[in-house]
């Protein structure tokens, strides 16, 4: 049976098709991701093209309001940017930051977890105490700290160029301990299994055993947690941007858009903050619901 045929016949797909929550979440997420990825093609305007912006267009309400304008479906912001386009591009940035931050956290977390779990002893004790200490602080606080330190340490010019990478690093470093702990736990279990002993008997190196034997077997649970954390990482980015330490208004992410809109919420221009907010909420919620479903679907004991 080929890989595709096996997948189409799997219990996994079966349970997916039978779960309305998973189906709806997947559709919402697909719309968000589709709109974000295809933003340059689908978006009616290019919000980064400063030349096309005109203050004359600012504060247009959404098209369905009485003063609305059909050319800006959900209105414009204070700079005259089309909100729909800004949200599509903003989502693109948010997803990009979230994915890379989680990718970074996964790389660090999996490596640390594998080494700690397989080597044990003092290596394990030291690595896990570091993770424990970091886990006692909220992730967002760590991200703020790291961001602040880098902001102070890097030359101003360099920092503003590297802004998005600093953000990714800060969020990623804040989220690795959870992955490390999970991977270490699974590694401890796998290390005691006889297939690992079989590899040790023929004299394979620890590195090779960790990578080719243990890693494929510990990946499942940590990927589920990564899914749940992706939603949180996107929220982290929004929070940091909302607090003003994230991305600049010239290249707004969803968080930046919410922050800008927040200034006008009480003067009646609600759409500038509400629509990015709704997009963020819908996206994070669907990621979390999908993650929850994935966890249950992959856990044979709950079936």
């Amino acid at each position, binding site marked *: 049976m080929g890989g595709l045929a096996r997948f189409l016949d799997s219990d996994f797909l079966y349970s997916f098709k039978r779960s309305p929550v998973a189906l709806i979440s997947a559709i919402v997420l697909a719309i968000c991701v589709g709109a974000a990825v295809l933003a340059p093609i689908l978006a009616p305007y290019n919000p980064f093209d400063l030349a096309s912006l005109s203050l004359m267009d600012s504060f247009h309400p959404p098209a369905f309001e009485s003063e609305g304008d059909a050319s800006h479906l959900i209105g414009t912001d204070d700079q005259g940017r089309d909100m729909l386009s800004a949200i599509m591009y903003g989502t693109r940035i948010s997803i990009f930051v979230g994915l890379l931050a989680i990718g970074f956290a996964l790389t660090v977390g999996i490596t640390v977890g594998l080494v700690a779990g397989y080597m044990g002893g003092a290596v394990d*004790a030291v690595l896990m105490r570091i993770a424990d200490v970091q886990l006692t602080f909220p992730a967002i606080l760590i991200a703020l700290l790291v961001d602040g330190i880098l902001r102070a340490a890097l030359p101003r010019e360099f920092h503003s160029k590297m802004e998005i990478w600093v953000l990714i690093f800060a969020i990623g470093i804040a989220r690795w301990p959870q992955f490390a702990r999970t991977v270490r736990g699974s590694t401890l279990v796998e290390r005691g*299994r*006889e*297939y690992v*002993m*079989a*590899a*040790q*008997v*023929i*004299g*394979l190196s620890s590195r090779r055993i960790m990578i080719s*034997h243990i890693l*494929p*077997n510990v990946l499942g649970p940590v990927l589920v947690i990564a899914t749940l954390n992706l939603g949180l990482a996107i929220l982290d980015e929004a929070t940091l941007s909302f607090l003003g330490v994230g991305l600049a208004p010239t290249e707004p992410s969803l968080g930046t858009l919410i922050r800008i809109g927040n200034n006008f919420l009480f003067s009646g221009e609600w759409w500038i903050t509400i629509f990015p907010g709704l997009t963020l909420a819908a996206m994070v919620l669907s990621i979390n619901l999908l993650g929850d479903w994935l966890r249950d679907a992959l856990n044979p004991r709950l079936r």
Partner: protein
Amino acid sequence: MADIVLQAEGVTRDFEVSRPLLQRMLSGEARRTLRAVDDVSFSIEKGTTLSLVGESGCGKSTIARLAVGLYRPSSGEIRFEGQPLSAARAQAALRRRMNMIFQDPYASLNPRWRVRDIVAEPIRAFGLLSSAKDIADRVGQLLTQVGLAAADGEKYPHEFSGGQRQRISIARALSSEPDFLVCDEPTSALDVSVQAQILNLMRDLQQQFGLTYLFISHNLAVVRHMSDRLGVMYLGRIVELGAGETLFRAARHPYMRLLLEAIPDLAMVGRTRTPVGGEVPSPIAPPPGCTFHPRCPLANERCRVEKPLHAVVDGVAVACHAVAEGRA
């Protein structure tokens, strides 16, 4: 004298069972160790099977792991083909000649690997063959040898039954062309009819390739079927060691006699036995003297204080004061 493949001399292995350093310091506890294997000596001749039998916690699995170098002895020495084991295992050419078969057919095969890759792993690790075609041919040949089909290599372990998985495990062990196999309870997770298939296969392979087995089991009937020589273990020590037939015909050590008495057997329909009482003490705090004395019907004052040494009578080594004194 025939070639000795594996020889253990005065092998002892301790494990630390203390709590973590920080907790130990806070509560002022001393380090605690567990002596899993205590002053064990044996040797295995080429082409024969030495079995070690005993109840859980007697140290037989620890010896299995010591014998392939997964653990190092705390003291004493193990020699493989005349060389110290650690030196032998440092050379790929010698390491290739020993391999292991495990107890749990559900844990001994990596669930994410195809069977062909599982069986080929030792071939690749030792660089025995290089071309993909040669490796595939060899894997097919190995799978056929253990009673599976060459095409089974494409499948994953979960597609097989327990007995078939154990065959895969045996094919993997054979793929490095070893002379010496350590078999750690290879059939205790299997149903009896499957057990018979696997035991027959192991005997056939032994004859075909002149294999030497160190066979670990808790099942005396299985051990009787498989072994040339037999060691009976209790709390880390070999209490009786000799030719299998002799031990089954005329066991001397009271523990071996207790075991023979305790095993339910098909021939005993409706028979009522008077089982011997007591349980195996914790190896963390073994009794002084002969560790079997709290359960031994022959124990006297000497047994309670003095550890018995092995005395060889008729080629059987027995560690028992009662036997040595002629009280048994």
